[in-house]
């Protein structure tokens, strides 16, 4: 079952990569083959990553079977788009999505959805588009006191994004709190139920309908933005070991701290720390067999960390050197070793396949840029990378480290806008000859042998000009 899923992912990702290469920037012409009969959009604001899921029921109004559907994302938003996935509603079957270019007049970025089969005329298709955006929420006011409450503003479209005529639609906004300071009033078509605000239903909307939606609400959580994450995965066949090291560059992106930090107040208000936006305790799940865990930063070891064993994972709980308030930065890196067998398999075709999550999510955090470096053993060749989602950049190179002679094969994957949904497994496969295992000892031995030989030759030579004094 799982392998089936993986296989599907692999095929999907191949298609996506292929398609990403073929992306054209010209605005596509959207033929009006579809008519949305119903559309329910849910905006989930419960975390800093805004997750939208749009359930669309659409009918083919063309005369021929159609297999493609255009999904628009407003221009400003598309830069912050981290994730997009389309599934058939009933079967959970994943449809391919392709970025096809933007319309600069309407400032809209189009995504093309390929159904698994062509839909006959007058047939309906039910599917869900899931998207996730980062940096869509802005704190307001910009500055708050040390124990102040943080409020965020969400701005967006009241209607669902659609490139087609929509008969009926509504928008639900799910908020993390009951403390809503204000939200766009739309006479007659807005209702609030606790922390859920519903707009609609609206009927008969033209394509690209837009009306501003803004919600001002309380958000008492830290907003963590990882400006850069570098993951190093180093495979060693010698030690049967996979060494993982993750370098974080973190910023607290919430409302900035007003004035300066007062330790006195900090100590006096300890009992309400959990209610403030201050970030102090972090935890990261590590594989169950992780060992030799360390947690350091640029100036050395940080002693405030703890490793906890859970049933199927180890949890690294750590504190930065100082609590993080809005606008404060912190960088650190941590690393661990895991047995290679947990992630690497030998496939009958003679290839080794590394299967490992792309990112290891940090609670509440969104990543602006993630770089994954896979350092393969010396002598690995014919390397292929397969990811379940498009990657912004893939580079291959040579990396030299201890006891290397010709250097190791390194693959560097770069991706911007990464969220928890990206913690899916990706695969790196390569060929590796077991004889390569002997390379290191041979090189080291040859080196030492040369040293001894040189010494032998050198000690047999005489450099004195005159007669050597008789010393024996």
């Amino acid at each position: 079952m799982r392998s089936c899923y993986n296989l599907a992912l692999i095929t999907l990702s191949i298609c996506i990569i292929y398609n990403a290469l073929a992306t054209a920037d010209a605005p596509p012409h959207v033929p009006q083959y579809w008519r949305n009969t119903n559309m329910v959009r849910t905006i989930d604001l419960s975390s800093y990553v805004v997750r939208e899921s749009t359930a669309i029921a659409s009918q083919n109004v063309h005369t021929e079977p159609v297999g493609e559907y255009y999904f628009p994302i407003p221009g400003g938003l598309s830069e912050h788009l981290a994730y997009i996935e389309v599934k058939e509603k009933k079967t959970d079957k994943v449809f391919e999505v392709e970025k096809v270019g933007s319309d600069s007049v309407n400032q809209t970025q189009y995504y093309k959805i390929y159904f698994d089969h062509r839909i006959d005329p007058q047939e309906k298709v039910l599917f869900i588009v899931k998207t996730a955006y980062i940096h869509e929420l802005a704190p307001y006011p910009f500055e708050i006191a040390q124990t102040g409450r943080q409020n965020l503003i969400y701005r967006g479209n009241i209607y669902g994004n659609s490139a087609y005529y929509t008969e009926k639609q509504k928008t639900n906004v799910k908020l993390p709190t009951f403390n809503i300071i204000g939200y766009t009033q739309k006479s007659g078509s807005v209702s609030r139920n606790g922390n859920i605000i519903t707009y609609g239903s609206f009927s008969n909307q033209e394509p690209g309908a837009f009306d501003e939606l803004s919600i001002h609400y309380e958000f008492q959580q830290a907003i963590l933005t990882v400006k850069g994450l570098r993951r190093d995965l180093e495979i060693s066949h010698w030690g049967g070991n996979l060494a993982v090291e993750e370098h974080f560059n973190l910023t607290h992106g919430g409302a900035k701290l007003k004035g300066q930090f007062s330790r006195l107040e900090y100590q006096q208000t300890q009992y309400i720390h959990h209610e403030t936006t201050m970030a102090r305790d972090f935890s990261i799940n590590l594989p169950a067999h992780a060992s030799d865990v360390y947690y350091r930063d640029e100036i050395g070891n940080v002693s405030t960390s703890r490793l906890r064993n859970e049933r199927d994972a180890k949890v690294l709980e750590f504190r930065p050197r100082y609590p993080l308030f809005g606008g404060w930065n912190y960088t650190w890196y941590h690393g661990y070793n895991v047995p290679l067998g947990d992630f690497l398999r030998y496939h009958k075709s003679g290839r080794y396949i590394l299967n490992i999550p792309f990112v290891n999510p940090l609670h509440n955090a969104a990543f602006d840029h993630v770089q994954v470096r896979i350092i393969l053993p010396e002598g690995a060749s014919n390397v292929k990378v397969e990811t379940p989602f498009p990657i912004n950049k893939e580079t291959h190179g040579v990396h030299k480290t201890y006891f290397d002679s010709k250097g190791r094969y390194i693959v560097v994957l770069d991706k911007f806008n990464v969220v928890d949904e990206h913690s899916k497994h990706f695969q790196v496969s390569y060929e590796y000859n077991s004889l390569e295992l002997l390379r290191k000892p041979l090189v080291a031995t040859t080196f030492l042998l040369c040293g001894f030989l040189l010494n032998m030759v050198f000690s047999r030579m005489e450099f004195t000009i005159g007669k050597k004094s008789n010393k024996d």
Partner: protein
Amino acid sequence: MKVLGLDAQNQASLLKVVILGLIAFVAISSRLFSIIRFESVIHEFDPWFNYRATRRLVQTNFYEFWNWFDERSWYPLGRVVGGTVYPGLMVTSATIHNILHALNFPVDIRNICVLLAPLFSAFTAIAAFLLTSEIKDSSAGLLAAAFIGVAPGYISRSVAGSYDNEGIAIFLLMFTFYLWIKSLKEGSAFFGGLTALFYFYMVAAWGGYVFIINLIPLHAFALILMGRFSTRLYVAYSSFYALGTLMSMQIPFVGFQPTRTSEHMAALGIFGLLQIIAFVELVRSHLASNQFQILFKGFIFIAFIAMFSALVILTFSGYIAPWTGRFYSLWDTGYAKKYIPIIASVSEHQPTAWPSFFFDLEMLIFLFPAGIYLCFKELRDEHVFVILYGITASYFAGVMVRLMLTLTPIVCVSSSITISSLLDNYLDFSVVDPETTEQKSVTDSKSKPQDKHKKPGDSSRSAATSSKSEKKKKKDQFFGIIGNDSRGIVLLNFFFFLVIFIWHCTWVTSNAYSSPSIVLASRQADGSQYIIDDFREAYYWLRKNTDDSAKIMSWWDYGYQIAGMADRTVLVDNNTWNNTHIATVGKAMSSEEEVAYEIMRRHDVTHVLVIFGGLLGYSGDDINKFLWMIRIAEGVYPDDVKETNFFTPRGEYRVDDEATPTMRRSLMYKMSYHNYNELFGGQGQDRVRGAKLPADKIKLSTLEEAYTTENWIVRIYKVKDLDNIGRNLEQAAAFEAGKKSRRPKRKQSQK
């Protein structure tokens, strides 16, 4: 007897190599306490600069480093690093780093820096072995190597992480001396040249090279006075001095000092003297003796007068710099306190307390005189050297704690001679039977392998040794130890002493010298280790959360650490080259807020950092150092800062209710205790000085607290900008406070 197919001589050399290897291993491993207990981190203060400079050298290249103008220290003056630094240490680690990287060993430069001193301590052990082998024999050499490997006096400056010049300098010192003895014994220009080369390395590495350039001439002079002038001495000294001086002048920080300062004049004088004597010897070999006597006396007299007057004239005309203050403080321990408080304020420049001799050297300090005595008994050229080194170094070690470091090697050498002689006598089983004494002792002296090794090439000296051993043999016949019980008692005793020595050394190393000082360790209630990491907390906060161009004002002790760990510009640092600048900072710290504010504005200060130990009882804090700040400030600004104003009428230095008004109004006092009373909900308790603070609230109007660490050890304040509507900041603060008080109570506590 053959073991492993080797004859006795090869067995001995194999053993020697193995033992030396083990000693090197012990020397390195006993210095790793701090890495095992804490982490691989650079210690203390000065090493942070060395580390920062090394990193820069590794990142750029040598010429970049040579021309490095460090604009991030001594703001706004900056510092020409290339010209004011001994680059030997940095170049050594950078070379190791580059070699390793060329061989695909990507070792982090920090780890190289951390482990450099332990590595060189292993080399020092080998150098001590070589030196002592030249002086006595290789068994004494092994003892010396073992002693220097673990002697706390040397470990104190060479534990892992203590990345300072002394770490490699002691090796260079020992090795230069070894080469000097070697070249003197053999009269070899080759070894003289090598001596010069290592002297050059030493000059590049440590200011203590002055010790070499005075001790070797002193040795030469003593030999001349003893009538031991020889062509060997002439060749060795001339080749060493000429080459060494030329090379040493290549270091920009040294430059023309070897020809212009008084510290180097003795070496030049001896060089001249040797030329004269050599010339005289030449003349003597061509003249009749009575003519020669007249000529000789006249010549010596004139030459001496001429040289001395030249020296005096040159000194007074300013061409030769007179002795520096640091030099005077070597002769008069009260000098620095009176005239250069900045030198006196450093704890390692204080005179040594006598228990620290025992603490650092344990039984060696008692064996040391015995070794000197044994040297007197033999008194070959190299023994004169040991005696001179021993006497001068003992004096200097008594004057300054820091110079214990130069004493330690010679104490190890000298005590190893003592113990080795003792063991030679008590383990010489060839004299067990009084009847067979005579014949055995003859065979014994021949069969001793080390005797053969130490035989030098020079025929005259080997003749001297053989006559000595002849004498020794005769003595052995009368004073040889015969009874096994007396052997047993003495040997067991000394075995016991040696064990205790190692025990003591390890204990001292582990307890006294292995703390990185930037990290403090304490125990939690359940006995687990709790790391107090306030310094790095504050420095990292500065590094990540202040503007890159922030200027940090702090007392100079923390300058290197801030530059190294926080990567921010500092006003003053541990390279105390500009007393006025330091005094300005001292004045800002000890003045009232308004005065201080003006100074800070003038120097573009954005943040002020103080160390406050009151909460935790950390005694090395700024309030305890405050008197030095006041003294140094008073030295430059006698009208503005007065030390007496900080003492109560009864002459006490207090921070509690009885603290003087000047004290209470000083910036340092305010910054240290700001908000501290409130933490206790009334009157704060200062745990370092055991004082209860005055109850009134401390108001700061020109600064605001920016960050305070978990245990309040480091407190960082931000300097406020000028007021928007042109009030002075005190008025503005008063106005703010007035406005605040009308607000509800809850809000007030937030501010």
